[in-house]
C-alpha cells in the first residue's frame, strides 16, 4: 500500500484545495457580499477545518479505510454503496467539468484560435499520467508545483499594486454582516471539494498517534494558506477594479495579469502566469480523477488501466459536450452549490455523528 508523508499531505491538500478557486472566487463573493466580499473568503475556507478534523478522527478509529468503506461499516452495505455511487457520479462529473474549464480559460484568454480539444487532451494526458503513477508521484508533483503556483500568485498580486484605486475598499461593513454569510456560502463548496478528496485519500495516510497530530496541523495549515491567498486575490481585485467590475469579470485574476507592467518595459507576462495556472488545473482534475478511481475500487471493485481509460473517456466526453463556455461555468456553479456542498456537509457530519454515537453506546 502506498503511503504519503504528513508534509506531502499538507502540500497536496493545499494544492487540491486551491485548484483554480482563485479564478472565480472574487466574482462569486463580491456578487453576494459587495465590497466586503474579501472578508468572507477565509471563513468560507475555514469550514474545511472542522470537516477535515472529523474525517481524520474517523481515520483514527478506522485506520487504512476511506470514508466510503467507513460508510459501509457504519450505515450498512446498501446505504454505504449508494453514497459511494453518488460520490463517483459527483466527482466524475465535476472533474470532467473542470477539464472543460481548462479549455474555456485558455481559449478565452490567450489562445483563442487553438482547438479547444488540445487543451482537453493535453490536460488529460498529464492527469492520466499522474493517476497511473500513483498517489506518491502525485504528492511529489504537488510538492514541486504548488510552491511555483504560490510564487506566481504572489508576483501577480504584488505587481498589481501600482494599479490600486483609492478607497475602493471603503466603506467597510456598510451593509452589515448579513451579506457576509452568503459570501461564505459561495466559498464553502471549495472546502467541500477538498473534503471529498480527503475522504478518499485517508487510505494512504499514516494513522499513528504522532502522525495524526501532524495530519491535523496539515489540514489547518493548508486551509489557512489557501484561504489567505484567495482572500488576497479578492482584496486585490476589489482594490484595482472596484466591486462592480470585479463582479462583471469572468476570470479577474487573468485581467490583473494582463495589466502587469514592470518599468514600462516588461508587459504581456500573463502567458507565464497562465502556464502556472495550468499546473493547478491539472492537480485539481487529477484529484477528482483519483476520487473516481477510489470510488470505483471501493464500491464496485473496479480498478486498473482499463477503468482509468473509461474514466478518461468520460472526462473528455463531458468536456467536449459543453460547447458553450457560459453553460459550463453555470454548470460548475450548480454542481458546487447544489450537489457538492449539501452532499459532503451532510455525509461527513452524519458519518462522524453516527461513529461517535455508536462508540458511545458501544456498538463498534
Amino acid at each position, binding site marked *: 500500500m502506498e503511503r504519503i508523508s504528513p508534509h506531502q499531505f499538507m502540500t497536496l491538500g493545499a494544492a487540491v484545495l486551491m485548484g483554480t478557486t482563485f479564478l472565480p472566487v472574487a466574482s462569486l463573493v463580491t456578487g453576494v457580499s459587495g465590497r466586503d466580499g474579501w472578508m468572507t473568503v477565509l471563513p468560507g475556507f475555514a469550514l474545511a477545518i472542522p470537516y477535515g478534523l472529523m474525517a481524520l478522527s474517523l481515520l483514527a478509529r478506522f485506520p487504512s479505510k476511506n470514508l466510503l468503506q467507513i460508510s459501509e461499516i457504519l450505515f450498512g452495505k446498501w446505504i454505504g454503496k449508494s453514497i459511494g455511487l453518488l460520490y463517483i457520479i459527483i466527482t466524475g462529473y465535476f472533474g470532467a467539468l473542470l477539464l472543460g474549464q481548462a479549455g474555456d480559460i485558455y481559449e478565452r*484568454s490567450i489562445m483563442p484560435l*487553438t482547438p479547444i480539444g488540445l487543451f482537453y487532451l493535453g490536460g488529460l*494526458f498529464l492527469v492520466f499520467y499522474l493517476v497511473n503513477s500513483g498517489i506518491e508521484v502525485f504528492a511529489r508533483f504537488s510538492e514541486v508545483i504548488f510552491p511555483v503556483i504560490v510564487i506566481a500568485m504572489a508576483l501577480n498580486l504584488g505587481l498589481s499594486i501600482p*494599479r490600486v484605486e483609492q478607497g475602493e475598499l471603503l466603506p467597510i461593513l*456598510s451593509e452589515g454582516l448579513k451579506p457576509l454569510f452568503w459570501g461564505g456560502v459561495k466559498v464553502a463548496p471549495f472546502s467541500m471539494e477538498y473534503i471529498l478528496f480527503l475522504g478518499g485519500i485517508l487510505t494512504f495516510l499514516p494513522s499513528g498517534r504522532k502522525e495524526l497530530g501532524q495530519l491535523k496541523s496539515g489540514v489547518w495549515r493548508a486551509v489557512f494558506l489557501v484561504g489567505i491567498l484567495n482572500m488576497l486575490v479578492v482584496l486585490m481585485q476589489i482594490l484595482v477594479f*472596484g466591486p*462592480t*467590475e470585479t463582479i462583471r469579470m469572468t476570470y479577474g485574476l487573468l485581467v490583473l495579469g494582463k495589466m502587469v507592467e514592470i518599468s514600462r518595459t516588461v508587459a504581456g507576462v500573463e502567458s507565464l502566469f497562465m502556464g502556472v495556472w495550468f499546473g493547478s488545473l491539472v492537480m485539481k482534475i487529477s484529484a477528482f480523477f483519483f476520487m473516481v478511481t477510489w470510488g470505483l475500487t471501493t464500491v464496485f471493485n473496479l480498478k486498473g488501466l482499463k477503468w482509468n481509460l473509461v474514466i478518461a473517456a468520460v472526462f473528455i466526453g463531458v468536456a467536449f459536450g459543453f460547447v458553450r463556455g457560459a453553460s459550463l461555468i453555470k454548470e460548475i456553479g450548480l454542481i458546487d452549490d447544489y450537489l457538492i456542498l449539501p452532499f459532503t456537509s451532510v455525509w461527513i457530519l452524519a458519518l462522524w455523528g453516527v461513529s461517535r454515537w455508536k462508540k458511545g453506546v458501544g456498538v463498534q
Partner: protein
Amino acid sequence: MKRKEGHKRKIGFLFCLMVFLIFLPGCWGKREVEELAPLIGIGIDLGQKPGTYMITQQLAKAKQSGAAVAEIEERTFSVEASSAREAYEEVYRISSRIPFMGSLRVVVLGEDAAKAGIGDILDFTQRYSEFRRSMFLVISKGTAQSLLNLKLRNGQLPAMSIKNHMEQGKNLSTFPTVRLGHYLTVLGTESMAPIIPVVENIKPGGREIEYKDGKEGEEIQIKGAGILRGDQLADFLTDEETKGYMWLENDVKHRLMNTVSTADNISFGGQILKSTTKYKVIGNDGIIGLHYQIKTSVAIDEIMGLRKKLSDTEWVDLMKVAETSFAKEIEKECNLSFRKEKELGLDFLGIGRHIEQKNSKYWKTVKDQWNEKIADFPVSLDIQVTIHHAGMSSSSAMTN
C-alpha cells in the same frame, strides 16, 4: 512478468508523450511578428451614416532602413463601420497584416462620438482578450481622425506622442492620466462622473506658444478634461478647473506653479515637492459637509519683483508671504472646480464617494437624490503650504 508489464506501460506512456509533443506545440493560432500590425492608437468618431462610427486605427510598422535605432513608419486607416470588429476586419483586408491589439496604448475619443456615448464602442476593448485595461483614454477637441492624422514636428506617431504625454503626466499633475480600467471603475460607482483628459493640437500663433509653421508638422498638448454623464460627454473642464480637480483628488505628485503678485508686487514660481489631500465628513448643527485638507510642500525656483536685500528675519517673513500666495492659488483652482461641479450637477470630484466611505449611514439617506444635492452640498477647504526652500540663492542681487 509484472516488471515486463510495467516496462511496457512505461514505453506506452513515452510513446504517447512523443505523439503529444509532436501535436501539442503545433502552434494553432501562432502568429509571427512579421505577420502582425501592432495597433498603437484607435480614434473613435461618429460616422456619416446613422448608427456608424468612423474608426481610425494607427498601426506601427518598423521601417526597413537598416538604422541601428528602430524607426517606426506610420500606417493610419479610417473606416466607417457599425462596430469595432467590422472596422478591424476592413483594416485587416487593407493592411494584409493582422492588427494586434495587445500593443494598443491610446484610445482617442472624438468630441462628437463622446457626446453620443462611448459605452457600446468601448465594449470590444473590454471583452476581447488581446486588449489590456492599462490603455489610456483621451478626448480630442474636434475629431479623433484629424488628431491621429496629424504630422507631428518630432516625427512621432500622434498615438505614441499622446502615450508619452500621459506617461509623463505625473510630473506636471495638470491633468488626470485615465486608463480604461480606471474609467470603468468610476463608471461602476453609483455617484461619480468619469473624467477623461482632453488632447488638442496647437496651431502656431494661435496661442501663447509660437513655433515655426510649415511642412515640419504640428504640436499637440493635453490640457483640461471632459466630464461624462455615464458614457456621454457632458461638458469640458478648463485647465484651471482640471488643476483644481487634481488637488482635490489627491493626484498632485509634482507641479510647477506661479503665484500672482502680492501687495509688494512680488510673485513666486515654484515646484510642488509633495502634496497630500485628506478629507473628512463634518457635521455642524446637523448639516453634513465635506472638509478637504491639502498639505503641500513647495520649493521656490523663481522670485519676481524683489528689488531689495532682505535680512534673515525679512526673508523668513517673505517665505510666509509666499506660502499664503501659493495657498491662494491652490484655493482658487479648487474653488473653480467646486463651482463647475455645482453648475453641472455632476459629481466628478467624487464627493459622494467620499461621504459614502466616511459616513455610509448618512450616504444611504442622500444617495437617491445625490445629483440634486450636489448643487448646495457644503464643502470647505484648508490649505497648508510649506516653503521647503528657495533654491540656491536668497534675497535679491540688487542692492537697496
